[in-house]
């Protein structure tokens, strides 16, 4: 009987410490982590360069699946022309949007200019806006519910701590991720078509391609880097880029539909109840139906 108590106490102490600490994982309430950071030193434009370019899509892109919002009239009304899933967003000139571009290797390790502000991930018309968002480690992410109806934000990172929180009405919640992770899928269980991706990196050199496929990463220190592009359906590609001061390094990457078949898409795991780690995840997280 005494032994039982002791081990239970240890277990309990361990659990309580895990529960109260929460230090090792992500998904924490963002405190004022920017508050203590030193004031941003003005960056000298003569010492930095730029990485810019365009992600192109070759061929005919697959159309998004239409989203049936008839059970959520408040949201349906915000899409008078109907809504479709945003898995592949290509404009009339073949530019591929929603590609996450970031420096993967080659950086010295900092110190980097501190993160400013709190990017907003909005739920508007039962669609995440933006569909792909980038964040610094420890930076506060503002999750906004502009619809005034129940959304839950079910984030499933693998390195950071998962969270699943609700916003039953118009409100904002903040979260942050202490560890770098590309990419964290976020979904809403109340509206199963909703899907977004959060890229968390520990430096400021990332961007997301716009609707026309173009992107721009500014204030990059001179050097040679491995830059990775990530797309939710077509996976990753890497490019070697050399940046010189006061110059813009051009980066052109092309994706095509054929890449979907063998795409490697690094992603926080969906719930794996089989209890083993499958390592690389060879599938994408499709939210739409």
């Amino acid at each position, binding site marked *: *009987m005494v032994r039982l108590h002791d081990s239970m106490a240890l277990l*309990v102490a361990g659990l309580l410490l895990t*529960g109260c600490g*929460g230090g090792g994982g992500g998904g924490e*309430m963002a405190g004022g982590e920017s508050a203590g950071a030193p004031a941003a030193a003005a960056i000298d434009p003569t010492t930095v360069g730029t990485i810019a370019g365009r992600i192109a899509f070759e061929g005919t892109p697959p159309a998004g699946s239409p989203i049936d919002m008839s059970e959520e009239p408040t949201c349906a009304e915000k899409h008078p022309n109907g809504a479709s899933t945003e898995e592949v967003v290509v404009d009339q000139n073949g530019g591929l949007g929603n590609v996450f571009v970031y420096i993967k290797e080659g950086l010295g390790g900092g110190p980097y200019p501190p993160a400013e502000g709190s990017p907003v991930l909005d739920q508007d018309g039962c669609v995440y806006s933006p569909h792909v968002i980038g964040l610094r480690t420890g930076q506060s992410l503002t999750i906004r519910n502009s619809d005034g109806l129940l959304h839950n934000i079910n984030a499933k990172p693998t390195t950071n701590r998962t969270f*699943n929180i*609700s916003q*039953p009405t118009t409100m904002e*919640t903040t979260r942050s991720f202490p560890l770098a992770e590309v990419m964290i899928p976020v979904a809403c269980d109340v509206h199963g078509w909703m899907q977004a991706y959060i890229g968390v990196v520990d430096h400021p050199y990332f961007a997301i391609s716009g609707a026309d496929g173009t992107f721009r990463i500014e204030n990059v220190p001179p050097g040679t880097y491995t830059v990775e592009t990530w797309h939710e359906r077509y996976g990753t590609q890497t490019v070697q880029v050399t940046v010189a001061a006061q110059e813009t390094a051009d980066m052109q990457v092309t994706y095509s539909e054929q890449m979907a078949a063998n795409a490697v898409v690094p992603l926080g795991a969906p719930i794996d*109840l089989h209890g083993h780690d499958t390592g690389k995840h060879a599938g994408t997280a499709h939210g739409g139906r």
Partner: protein
Amino acid sequence: MSATAIEHVGAHAVQHGDLPFIRKYIFSTDHKVIGIQFLIMSLGFLLVGGLLALTMRWQIAWPGRAIPGGGILPETMAPGGIMLPEFYNSLVTMHGTFMIFFAIMPLLVGVFANYLIPLQIGAPDMAFPRLNMASFWTAVPAALLMIASFFVEGGAAAAGWTSYPPLSAVAEFSGVSTGQELWCLSLIILGFSSLMGAVNYITTVINMRAPGMTWFRLPLPVWALFITAILVLLAVPILTGALILLYFDQVLGTGFYLPERGGQPLLWQHLFWFFGHPEVYILILPPMGMVSEILANGARKPVFGYHAMVIAICAIAFLGWIVWGHHMFQSGMNPMLGSTFMVTTMIIAVPSAIKTFNWLATLWKGDIHFTVPVAHALAFVGMFVIGGLSGVFMASTPVDIYIHDTYFIVAHIHYVLFGGSLFAIFGAIAYWFPKMFGRMMNDRLGWIHFWLTFVFYNLTFFPMHQLGLGGMMRRLYDPTQYPHLEPLQPLNRFVTVNALLLGAAQLLFVANFLWSMFRGRKAVANPWRANSLEWSAPSPPPHGNFTVTPIVYRGPYEYSAPGAEEDYLPQDRPPAGQPAPAPELVPAQ
């Protein structure tokens, strides 16, 4: 036996005065002190459990409106005082958990079993006093774990007090990880506390009855508590096992209840309800016993059908093992099982009906003195009838299709648990308070508390039958999200307002309890002119209870016996013409 008991008494009477405060009141082996320790703990949980329910009711009545005082709650529970759905689910879960496991069950199996059994059988203490102490001090860490679960990341358990997996087993589904695990650990530990108590009660009743206290001279509370202890002994281990499997699924990656890992969600339901149904009889049998006691005393009349009452208690306990499937009619288990369980469930209504008729017959041609305990006992009878009759609806499998998991069930639960168990507990506290503390509870406060509680209780819970029939499901954070429930909102608001008033009325009980403990009118040994043995001991009884082992000459319900001088005849009063036995100072051997 009696010789050993006397020797025990003598030895203890000498030692007791030398005990330091901590051994007298904190780590005490005296069943009376332990009973009162359980009483303080359980009443605390009763109040907090009620507060949780009131918070829930606020949200149901006024969805999305900030809770008054809700600003103190953290952002993860109620940003700006507006409750989040996951916090609501935690409130639902913890209200049920607190009330069933930490309030009602310990009030019966920890307080009254502990306090009454030795006194009513004429024993100086329990068979295993140190085990008894361990039983309380095992319950304390269990309680602390359960409270602590509110303060861990993710908050407290949120899968209902019934904790069905996969929702309760996989943190991603509920959003609660540590809280759900602590819930399991807490109840596993509490189970050990209950088992320790059960072993003690059974042994004590079998082995330590005073001379002349035959089985059929036992007061009905002892019968009820004894049979209940057997139920605890047999049912709680099932829950403990089920909880351990659930905990393993939560932390070790096993798959007892998870289909992806080869398990079955229904396994939990079978195990849980195999415990859960005897559990509800654990929660109602001791109240039934205590009500019999109070009514016979109040009406100055023997319990009508004492033997039938005992048989009914045993029948309820026995049949309680073969009805668990009625919680699972719609669960997906083989529907043919539903038919079997329906028959057994219908049958188990019979012994409860028998008891109800016997209570009525006890009152018939009685001389009923209206005291606060009697009022509560009468309310028990009246309300238990409603709870029992509503049970017939859900016993019928086709009707259950409609009312399962609706507020009709919630109404039933609260009519038997509050209208039944809790009224009986209020009555029992008022009745035995003088014995426990040597003072009477304040009568006027007691009556006001009774009437306010009775009125607001009915106004709170009776409309829930209608809510259920209107199709309102259980555990809904915001009923207005369903078009068919919007017309029921006025009724929901009515329920909430009365619930708040009901909660406020309980403050009177708290005030009465605390005030009377220190300033109540001093009580004599036998303020109710009752027959059972505890009233022969002083109020409160000393350590060891009886200076002389009582000898029992008759049953406990000799009220208004022909030829008796007064309208009561204590069990240990020698028959006329027979001298009182001389106190034995040395063992007979």
